């Protein structure tokens, strides 16, 4: 989908909408990421240190890549960049399609909730 086609005038952003740009305007109205959904706890890692100047990327895309140099969960990205989770997901879908990030789904609960992990959590909490 060419970006230009999506940058049509949003006539629903009228005076009544107020001065605030509604979150999904940032994604040209798209509400679901391309290539499928992912968990809010999935980790995101940028695959390259730099993003080549790509015409279709928005400042928010660049901000995500810059923030995901080290593995970071989707929720943490959303909070750091002050974007809603839904918007971050759509932008991550774009970056994943462009090969600029890798996504790592959380391991199945049965694996991450094993007793050794839980003991480590308890010990860590006691040390707080």
């Amino acid at each position: 989908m060419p970006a230009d086609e999506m940058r049509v005038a949003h006539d629903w952003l009228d005076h009544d909408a107020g001065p605030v740009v509604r979150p999904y305007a940032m994604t040209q109205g798209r509400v679901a990421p391309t290539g499928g959904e992912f968990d809010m706890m999935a980790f995101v890692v940028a695959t390259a240190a730099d993003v080549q100047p790509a015409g279709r990327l928005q400042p928010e895309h660049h901000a995500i890549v810059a923030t995901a140099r080290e593995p970071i969960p989707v929720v943490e990205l959303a909070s750091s960049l002050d974007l809603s989770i839904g918007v971050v997901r759509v932008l991550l879908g774009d970056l994943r399609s462009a090969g600029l990030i890798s996504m790592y789904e959380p391991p199945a609960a049965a694996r991450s909730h094993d007793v050794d992990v839980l003991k480590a959590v308890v010990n860590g909490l006691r040390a707080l």
Partner: protein
Amino acid sequence: MDSVRSDRNGASSRIPVALKILIAGGFGAGKTTMVGSVSEIRPLQTEEILTGVAGADDVGGVEGKTTTTVTMDFGRITITEDLQLYLFGTPGQDRFWFLWDELSQGALGAVVLADTRRLADCFPSIDYFEQRGTPFVVAVNCFEADNRFAADAVARALDLDPGVPVVLFDAREPLGARNVLIELVEYVARRQLASAGSR
């Protein structure tokens, strides 16, 4: 624990394990206070489409659909470099139930905050976690000394299943909140061991 990624250059870095704990309870039960007392609290926005979410190819936009912004409390506790605990204060209002399904997906467990002056406020949370099979503890937030009830009286009043821990605490005290989390994680571990033993 062993999710190691290999990138194109053959280098690898560990992907940490992030565990999710939900902090639920009625309005004013102390969710924000608890998340803030034990972790670095930050707001997290979710902007949700309330009706018929369209597919990825639909660029028709969200005009005409109802979106709602929900700001949740969100905090992180770093246990080790490879192990992080995330706390989510669940939105209390009924109309945000749809958010709970995703929040509780894969969650380690939940803390249901109870206020003895309005005990019924935590019934929906308890029902929800019982139905989902999400392990939870009930933490009675003691704002005032004269409002202290015995833990077993609360357990009876809430008709909890045997074994569900009830903890009395003060959400404003970091150690109080921490101890509730420890109680929850130990309870989850006991359940894991019990289910492993019965196999």
